[in-house]
């Protein structure tokens, strides 16, 4: 099945798991991820840091066992999330983020090897957004919220095209894949790239990604109808995170 | 090698010549290891196990997982109000024919550890020893069916030897049914105490009861069987447990009598009620 939700707007729910401090479920571009956040809790001796909290990120693939790729994604997430969480507030503590992948878009043209799960950059935005939402839901103090997006440079008919939220097919033929995250203040938080690209291309990617993550003016002017589904689907990721939180708070306080 | 069950109906004798309600020979000894707090050696047919009990003692440093422990609520070693029963089972490589290598993380062994620990904890008065640990270590020397039952019996004997207060013996044995689940044979006879060959071919279960009551401490069935046969198997199993209890009791009394004879213990020191003749 071609993932039917590839072009749909992102969807998110907060507080989906009753027994963890905070949790969120997020689905976009065929990826569905559930996250739980527990913390601040007591850290293990080996993880204990006397000055700041330890942020532990665990990425669990839907099928098969995780490998080095998952560890790689975990380390990227860990370092970027450590920058937005106020870790200095909780010395000797642990903030544990478990990201459970539930669904990934399938490539109908390939039979995948499943026992060794292999994730790639395309899932990063989903993981990142879910983690941020779950952290918000757990009430972990943060300096700013952040949103991530994946951009691929795909050669098509001799022309290089920038694709936001690339499909598995796009990733396969892409020249380079990039993950960028921006805080709500518009600062670049994370930039990871794979493949070869020029500095000029990267500038273009940076602009596209920034527009997707934190487009400062509401996307009403219609002039930037770039080939990205996000802009056409409505507000950018920052607004999406905000409106998700707002609706959750409104729902929780309906009795007031 | 499929078991030839066809002859059973002719002579009503099983492959090893027993009748349906006969136990194999049970040979048991207690106080086999002088250095241990409690020890036992038990043979059920060709299944041979050895057990050593240490404790109740101060809990040592905790290693790895806590699989195979019972008692102490929450399992936080040394912080509980009940003693923790920690069971460790070692299956010797030479114990069975196929010499299968089982690692420390073998889930079947871990499950047996947990079962033995929880079964013992039901009988031992663990509430008398807060913040402490009872270590039971079991060694399987030879396997010929009814392994779990033999382990439970050996552990019970060793706990008696260690002098840990307990409600009653936890006695265990297995019961089976004469035809496989596929044959919808309602007239199938129940069988008592299965050997390895029977265990491979026929449905069966392991029952452990508290003393000579009808109360079941552990019930483990790992094969497919019609629900209608459960009752028959359970009745025979519980009855077998009572026989096993008698045998275990005889072993303990015999040892006690010998110890008095040898002068190891004086008659009347804690053995008042014991009927020594």
């Amino acid at each position, binding site marked *: *099945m071609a993932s*039917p*939700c590839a072009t749909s707007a992102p969807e998110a729910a907060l507080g989906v*798991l*009753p*027994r*963890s401090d905070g949790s969120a479920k997020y689905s976009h571009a065929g990826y569905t991820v*559930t996250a739980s956040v527990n913390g601040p*809790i*007591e850290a*293990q001796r080996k993880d204990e840091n006397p000055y700041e909290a330890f942020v532990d990120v*665990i990425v669990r693939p*839907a*099928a098969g066992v995780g490998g080095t790729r998952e560890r790689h994604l975990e380390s990227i997430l860990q370092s970027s999330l450590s920058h937005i969480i106020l870790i200095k507030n909780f010395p000797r503590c642990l903030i*544990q983020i*478990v990201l*459970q992948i539930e669904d990934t878009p399938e490539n*109908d*043209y390939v*039979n*995948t090897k*499943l*026992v060794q799960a292999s994730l790639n950059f395309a899932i990063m935005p989903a993981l990142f957004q879910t983690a941020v939402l779950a952290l918000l839901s757990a009430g972990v103090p943060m300096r700013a919220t952040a949103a991530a997006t994946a951009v691929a440079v795909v050669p098509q008919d001799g022309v290089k095209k920038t694709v936001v939220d690339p499909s598995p097919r796009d990733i396969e033929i892409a020249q380079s894949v990039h993950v960028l995250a921006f805080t709500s203040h518009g600062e670049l938080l994370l930039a990871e790239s794979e493949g070869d690209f020029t500095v000029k291309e990267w500038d273009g990617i940076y602009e596209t990604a920034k527009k997707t993550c934190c487009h400062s003016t509401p996307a009403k002017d219609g002039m930037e109808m770039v080939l990205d589904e996000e802009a056409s689907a409505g507000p950018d990721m920052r607004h999406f995170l905000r409106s998700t939180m707002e609706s959750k708070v409104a729902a929780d306080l309906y009795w007031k | 090698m499929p078991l030839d069950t066809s002859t059973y109906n002719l002579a009503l004798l099983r492959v090893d010549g027993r009748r349906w309600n006969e136990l194999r020979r049970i040979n048991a000894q207690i106080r086999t290891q002088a250095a241990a707090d409690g020890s036992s050696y038990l043979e059920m047919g060709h299944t041979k196990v050895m057990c050593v009990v240490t404790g109740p003692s101060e809990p040592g440093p905790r290693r*790895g*997982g806590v*699989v195979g*422990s*019972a008692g102490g*609520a*929450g*399992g*936080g070693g040394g912080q509980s109000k009940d003693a923790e029963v920690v069971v460790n089972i070692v299956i010797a490589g030479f114990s069975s024919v196929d010499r299968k290598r089982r690692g420390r993380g073998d*889930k079947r062994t*871990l*499950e047996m550890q*947990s079962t033995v*620990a*929880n079964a*013992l904890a*039901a009988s031992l008065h663990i509430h008398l020893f807060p913040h402490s640990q009872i270590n039971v270590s079991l060694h399987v020397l030879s396997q010929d069916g009814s392994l779990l039952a033999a382990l439970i019996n050996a552990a019970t004997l060793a706990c008696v030897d260690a002098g840990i207060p307990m409600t009653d013996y936890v006695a265990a044995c297995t019961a089976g049914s004469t035809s496989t*689940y596929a044959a919808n044979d309602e007239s199938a006879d129940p069988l008592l105490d299965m050997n390895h060959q029977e265990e491979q071919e026929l449905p069966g*279960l392991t029952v452990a009861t*508290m003393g000579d009551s009808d*109360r*079941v*401490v*552990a*019930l*483990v*069935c*790992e*094969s*497919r*069987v*019609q*629900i209608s046969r*459960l009752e028959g198997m*359970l*009745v025979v199993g*519980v009855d077998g447990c009572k026989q096993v209890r008698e045998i275990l009791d005889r072993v303990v009394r015999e040892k006690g009598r010998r110890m008095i004879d040898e002068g190891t213990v004086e008659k009347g020191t804690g053995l008042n009620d014991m009927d020594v003749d």
Partner: protein
Amino acid sequence: MPREVEPSLNEKQFVLQALQENLRLDGREIDQYRPLELTFGDQYGVADVTLGKTRVLAKASAEVTVPYTDRPLDGIFTIATELSPMTSPAFELNRPTETEVLLSRLLEKTVRRSNALDTESLCLIAGQKCWSVRVDVHVLSHDGNLIDAACFAVVAALRHFRKPDTSMEGGVLTVYTPAEREPVPLSWLHSPFCITWSFFGDQGEIALLDATWVEEQIRVASCTISLNRHGEICQIAKLGGTPVDAVALLQCSGVALTKAKEFSTYLDGKLAEDTKKRNKGGLLAELSAENDR
């Protein structure tokens, strides 16, 4: 790692006294399950089971691999149950706790050893190629009775799962991608379900089904019975704990059978509903052969 919060003495006594008066905190009957909900994913072989606040996600997957040398005619079938800290921070990765070992053994005995999945049908070329079917059980939230929920999820995921179609022509094995040929269901023989009884009281005289997390922490013994709707027991596990009268256990197994039949009917209904939803063109004939047994 942080330990689980234990119920306080007051809480324990409150629950116990209520149980002695035949009352449960959530107002259920003693033999009543919490509302069971099953949803299938967009992909084949994804089952999301909610039992009250307990939530388990099972995902089945398959790949072609080399069979074990000692079983050249059988495919490979594994059930992976790793409890992540998502379930509770008390669980650590790569360090199996007792709960995890017992859960994985129970699922193994219930589904694998009872031959629910015909592993011989997974063989493609004897000794060289076979299917390796794997079910990953993800426990998203644990509010008691993990075993029953997980078992139901595994069975549902496997029955919903379709593996890629294959063909053998002149000794050449072709595995078709989903775009080329519609995937085919597994050869499924029977559907076992776990039913767990929890016992309370000094003599284990109070028995109830589908214990919540609080009840599970207070119970003195538990007994899991796995059976299918034909009344075949696949596994019984009362692994120690306070002794329970043998007659009571027999009665429990009787009730368990009616529950297993209910589960079976519910699952059949859900599968039929899903098939109807997915049915495009002439696929129905192929898919409906699945529920014969």
